């Protein structure tokens, strides 16, 4: 059994209430941090821990915190990004639904480290019931004196608010999230300035993922150095992986970073192998936007070493033969899966979710979807594969925010590794399936 730090007591009955949570050692990190440590000490522990952002980019959290500008007389904010909308990722929902106090505990501790008087939890619109759970937890925390004026008798005061989004993927991008939080249209801002300098209402702001903030509590409790001992190299600690697809046991798993991918897929502790005894075809390792990898490349790197569940090992070989850990949305596909159909689903999503601010993403995603639809209804030609490749290369890296890349990478990787499938469909003029498209198209405007 691997070590569990975040969801070790998720099966405890009533853990969503403050009473049970405290009985199981909850809010100890708040007490420890507020009463025995200075804010800088907490930041130092996070730096020492090597914790990396769990939202997808994997940027070191301690470094992000130290970039926060601290001008006199200007408030600072902590914003929790709970707008988890990447297809295949549902770890934050699980955490907030089961143990909402773990997030609030992390929010208080992190806000103390950053010196933020107010913090916001931005939850995606579709998670309205989760927002209710978190709001209940916040109410309990206020009643117990863990939030509000002079927390636990110290002179640290803090307010925490929940804001529910309107259900847009783009608001998971940190600057679009801030725009939305300010009550504006959720369009990403042009950087620089970065949120650490001018974020929410022009004030210095740190935006962190739910899991990142929750991971601050065990770091404060066990110390940064101890936390850094878990994992391999620069990938320290534990990570929540939301496993889905054609596996026997889909669900959210907490893993110690560094276990082999093969073990994660086939061991009984985690995914439990492929459903119905089928063979595995491909894996999307970190949420729909990261490049898809065929079986031989996901289990072993191009050099022949076994691939591990770490930021570095999964990225080994760049995008030619590697992928990314991303947000931990682990989607496994068996041998019967059509990569083209799967890609169409992903691309349709990005087309639907593009904010339309910059032209390559606005026009390109829709174009790619239309071409992929040609593949599905059997009217595609071989030259369409080349066209698809050209379009994705003209979106990637030319947009304001990473949604352009998120839309381009899956297309690039599918063509890179499964070009034969595209060509086969184009040559045979086979009608794949459009029924689900038409059904969904009715829902769309």
């Amino acid at each position, binding site marked *: 059994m691997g070590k569990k730090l975040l969801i070790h007591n998720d099966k405890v009955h009533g853990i969503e209430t403050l009473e049970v949570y405290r009985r199981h050692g909850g809010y100890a990190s708040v007490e420890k941090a507020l009463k025995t440590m200075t804010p800088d000490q907490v930041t130092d522990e996070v730096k020492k821990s090597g914790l990396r952002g769990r939202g997808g980019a994997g940027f070191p959290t301690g470094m992000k915190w130290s970039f926060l500008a601290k001008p006199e007389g200007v408030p600072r904010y902590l914003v929790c990004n709970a707008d988890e909308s990447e297809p295949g990722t549902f770890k934050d929902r699980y955490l907030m639904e089961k143990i909402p106090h773990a997030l609030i505990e992390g929010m208080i501790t992190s806000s103390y480290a950053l010196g933020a008087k107010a913090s916001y939890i931005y939850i995606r619109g579709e998670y309205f019931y989760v927002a209710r759970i978190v709001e209940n937890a916040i109410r309990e925390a206020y009643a117990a004196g863990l939030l509000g004026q002079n927390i636990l008798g110290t002179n640290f005061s803090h307010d925490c608010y929940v804001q529910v989004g309107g259900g847009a993927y783009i608001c998971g991008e940190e600057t679009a999230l801030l725009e939305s939080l300010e009550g504006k249209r959720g369009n990403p801002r042009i950087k620089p300035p970065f949120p650490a300098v001018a974020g929410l209402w022009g004030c210095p702001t740190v935006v962190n993922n739910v899991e990142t903030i929750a991971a601050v509590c065990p770091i404060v409790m066990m110390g940064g150095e101890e936390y850094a001992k878990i994992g391999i190299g620069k990938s320290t600690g534990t990570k929540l992986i939301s496993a889905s697809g054609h596996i026997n046991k889909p669900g959210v798993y907490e893993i110690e970073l560094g276990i082999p991918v093969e073990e994660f897929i086939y061991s009984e502790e985690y995914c439990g192998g492929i459903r119905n005894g089928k063979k595995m075809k491909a894996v999307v390792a970190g949420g729909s936007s990261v490049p898809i990898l065929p079986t031989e490349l996901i289990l072993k790197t191009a050099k022949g070493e076994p691939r591990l569940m770490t930021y570095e090992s999964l990225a080994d070989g760049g995008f030619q033969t590697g992928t990314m850990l991303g947000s931990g949305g682990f989607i496994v596909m068996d041998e019967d899966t059509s990569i083209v159909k799967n890609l169409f689903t992903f691309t349709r999503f990005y*087309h639907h979710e593009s904010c*339309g*601010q910059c*032209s390559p993403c*606005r026009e390109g*995603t829709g174009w790619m979807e239309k071409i992929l639809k040609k593949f599905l209804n059997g009217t595609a030609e071989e030259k369409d594969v080349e066209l698809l490749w050209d*379009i994705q290369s003209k979106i990637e*890296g*030319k947009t304001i925010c990473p949604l352009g890349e998120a839309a381009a990478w899956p297309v690039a990787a599918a063509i890179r590794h499964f070009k034969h499938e595209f060509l086969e469909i184009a040559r045979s003029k086979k009608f794949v399936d459009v029924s689900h498209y038409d059904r969904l198209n009715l829902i769309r*405007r």
Partner: protein
Amino acid sequence: MKVTIDGIEIDVPKGTTILQAARMIGPQVAPPAMCYYTKLKTSGGYCRTCIVKVTQGSTANPNPMPKPVASCRTEVMDGMVVQNFTSPEILEARKGVVEFLLINHPLDCPICDQAGECKLQDLGYENGSAKTRYEFKRREYEMIDIGDKIKLHMTRCILCYRCVKTAEQFTDERMHGVVHRGDAGEISTYIEKVIDNDFSGNVIDVCPVGALTDKTFRFKQRVWFTKPVDAHRKCDKCCGKTRVWLKGEEVVRVTARKDQWDEVEEFICNSCRYDHKKTSDWVIEGPSPIHRNSVISQNHYQNLNELKVQIMKQQKALGFMPIDKKP
């Protein structure tokens, strides 16, 4: 601060963007811009036509920037080295952007009032390819009147946000904005003819394409048949300095004066724009400076025969043979 753009070095003050620095050097290095507007704060960064490659970030940090950057929103650093037209990568990327902008554009230039002074036409000719690879139905919208005198033809819009920012920054209350998301997004007011403001007409001038047109001028005249002259009148609302477009003795349209980069010099009021359509209302200063390559300068059709003779004379002098007389 010293910055090198396409091999030309220039000294610029702190806070200058790459695009502004390139414009200071001249049009030979200035990247095209569809959404950026010097007079509008926070404009730019959306269309991605002005992307450039930064091969050296600054003297202090000589690393190149990993991705192409939007030159209109990136400030220069001391010792920055920028490639614009000299980078094949950028030219290819820009070609892609032009293609993206055009795939849903109706290309109805023959019936579009903006034809002849359209930034998208210029961009397409200069940076695009002659053929499209797009084979699907183009996006279409109904035309709406967003103001008393302003027609919105959303089908032509490239979502540059200029009009939104103009309304936000130069009028008291913004009545229109972008509704919906992605490629379904559109400029709209929700309620028709709601824009009623003394300076609302300026959205027509800032529109780079024919999406917003002047209803008092629609279908009256092609721009290259009209003669632009700079004129002024005494106006208590605005500066009164305008460009009056004449057809013979008739004033067909009044716009603000535009500079070399097709940007409005001074915004004008609706009264000057719509209500003063008599030559006697204006004090004419003289012909407007129009670029010699602009189609507006080429309106001397009556001299076509003369032109032919001239061309043949020049060809003869250079030793060219007329095509049909080649052996």
